[in-house]
């Protein structure tokens, strides 16, 4: 079984693919400041340059052979993301966080299947990444000021909404053991169930907040998993898009109700049936965490 430590820990050596672009530079600096062991960058044709003192290589293979990189964060534009991901998978990395949005679904299907076969964990695409406040480590783009070390594991399909909820959790003095965005696309790598498994085994995590949204059936599947495995830690859920109209993409590629599929109500019902408390609004999550007795 996959553990949180197995995908990211103090020994993770992180590389940035697309490090010389605006986003790559900005977040390289932010990750270094937070404490992430970021050791290399890759941009084809920019080998030999430096970004924030970090050496840039033309290929992933070079970054791996010189620095023992085992983790990557991808900022390359959508049309090149497939190639970047495949290059990192073939280099045998243990985890790749794909920040890029608007990647064609066919491409995501292809590189996620390839990663599954090779044992590489893909987070995203279209994700804010992962942050582990107790370890001062992030492979992601989340603003660290909203996060505090603590005991709540947060898993989400969203970015800023996660920050909003993390802020409530931080202000309540609970803090987070880790926050992981699985991505706002219809096709994503790591899913709710895998993250729930990780939080179950993680000693720092005492309760879990799951932030879902309309579209697909990932929340219903997670609810079934929680009920069938008699999940041992309290879970509080929040679902965005209760008032979303059908057949409209609500900002995220994956946030779309199709026919009767993917409605907020179906997800809320599934969680309630699984004994998971569902918050009506983001600020209620902390109250519900209080009642579930951490």
């Amino acid at each position, binding site marked *: 079984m996959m553990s949180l430590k197995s995908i990211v820990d103090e020994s993770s050596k992180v590389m940035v693919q697309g490090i010389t672009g605006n*986003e790559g530079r*900005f977040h390289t600096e932010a990750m270094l400041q937070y404490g992430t062991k970021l050791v290399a960058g890759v941009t084809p044709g920019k080998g030999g340059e430096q970004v924030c003192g970090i050496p840039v290589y033309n290929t992933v293979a070079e970054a791996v052979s010189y620095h023992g990189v085992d983790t990557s964060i991808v900022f390359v534009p*959508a*049309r090149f993301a497939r190639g970047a991901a495949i290059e990192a998978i073939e280099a045998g990395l243990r985890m790749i966080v794909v920040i890029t949005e*608007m*990647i*064609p*679904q*066919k*491409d*995501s*299907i*292809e590189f*996620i*299947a*390839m990663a599954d*076969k090779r044992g590489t964990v893909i987070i995203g695409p279209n994700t804010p990444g992962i942050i582990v406040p107790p370890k001062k480590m992030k492979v992601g*783009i*989340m*603003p660290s*000021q*909203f996060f505090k070390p603590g005991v709540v594991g947060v898993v*989400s399909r*969203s*970015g*800023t*909404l*996660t*920050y*909003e909820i993390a*802020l409530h959790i931080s202000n309540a003095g609970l803090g987070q053991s880790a926050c992981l965005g699985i991505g*706002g696309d*219809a*096709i994503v790598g790591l899913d709710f169930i895998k993250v729930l498994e990780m939080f179950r085994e993680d000693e720092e995590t005492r309760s879990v907040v799951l*932030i879902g*949204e*309309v579209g*697909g*059936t*990932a929340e219903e*599947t997670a609810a079934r998993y929680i009920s069938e495995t008699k999940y041992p830690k309290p879970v509080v859920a*929040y679902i*965005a*898009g*209760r*008032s*979303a*109209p059908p057949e*409209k*993409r*609500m*900002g*995220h*590629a*994956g*946030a779309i109700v199709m*026919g009767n599929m993917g409605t907020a109500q179906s997800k809320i019902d599934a969680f309630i049936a699984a004994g998971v408390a569902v918050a009506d*609004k*983001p*600020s209620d999550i902390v109250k519900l965490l209080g009642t579930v007795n951490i």
Partner: protein
Amino acid sequence: MKLFEFEAKDILRKYGLQTPSGSIARDPVEVEIVAKRLGKPVALKAQVLVSGRGKSGGIQFADDVGEAKKAAIYLIGSHIKGNVVRSLLVEEKLSIVDQYYASITIDRQARRYVVLASTNGGVDVEETALTSPNRISRYWVDPATGFNEETAKATVAQFSFNGDRDITEFASVIATLYRVAMDYDAELVEINPLAKTSSGEFIAADARIVLDDNALFRHPEFEDRGSAGMDDNPREAEAKRQNLAYVDLSGDIGIIGNGAGLVMATMDLVHLLGGRAANFLDIGGGAQPEVVGKGLMLVMSKPGVKAVLINILGGITRCDLAARGIIGGLSEVADEKPVAVRLMGTNDEVGREMLRLAGIPVYPDMETATKKVIGWVKR
């Protein structure tokens, strides 16, 4: 991007699949010409991008040219589920013996393309899944190995056919559909019904193709097709041009925020507290002042918007830049409406001060801001 039936059929024909004889027609005279040329009973099919067209009267049959012209006069310019009919596909009426179903779509949960084949065509496949699940066959495609004639045969082998020819024909159709889905980056390629005619041929009587918007850079022929906005209203089309995620809703409070989840949560909070959202705008991460300003103008341009709620939780998005955008946008709106802003995060103190000086009320949390806006609208 949804393609029209006639566009989908053009693609299928390129791949050697059979479709009924016919042509597109834009007025009753053209319909008459096509019907005359076909010289037999015809089907007139409204070209609109909505499903369930048949049940809404969008498909008419005519036994002769006169009837065809009459039906065309009735159909062209009429509305089907809110979409105006601009053209008809005029086709020979098939003599159908059996109706099958074939599609390629994406299974989000399995993260695979899935091939669906059914011997129960002409109805919703979801319905078949409920009523006669043994008449559907599914095959989840491993992208590394793909889907060919052999896997296709295995997929339809469970059905009882009269003879091998039908199996081969059906398998060939679904293998071809998979090639179409791959070549065009389609989210959906569907033939329903796949008609077996009295002469034993398999013909795509109706076809739907939905392309992946994110893959249009590989298909420039569709990028500027001009019909991108055909299933959108003018504001949604304008938002698309500006690369903004915008959705029109039916209430009176405009909603703007950074990040899809946060904007949805804001919209939901408005509903929970008794208000109704007029629209939904996600300005995304790291938005520049111009984007915020234009977005605000777009949201206010909707008739019936009485007030606007802006929720910014700045990480990559700088609150001072967002504030500048809000002030700039408001200065360009002729018919200004009250705005409540929640502004927090990177550079928020500077941003809040800018808004205060401009006389725009600003709140530290989304619930307070939401309650204010609902109060204004209800008054």
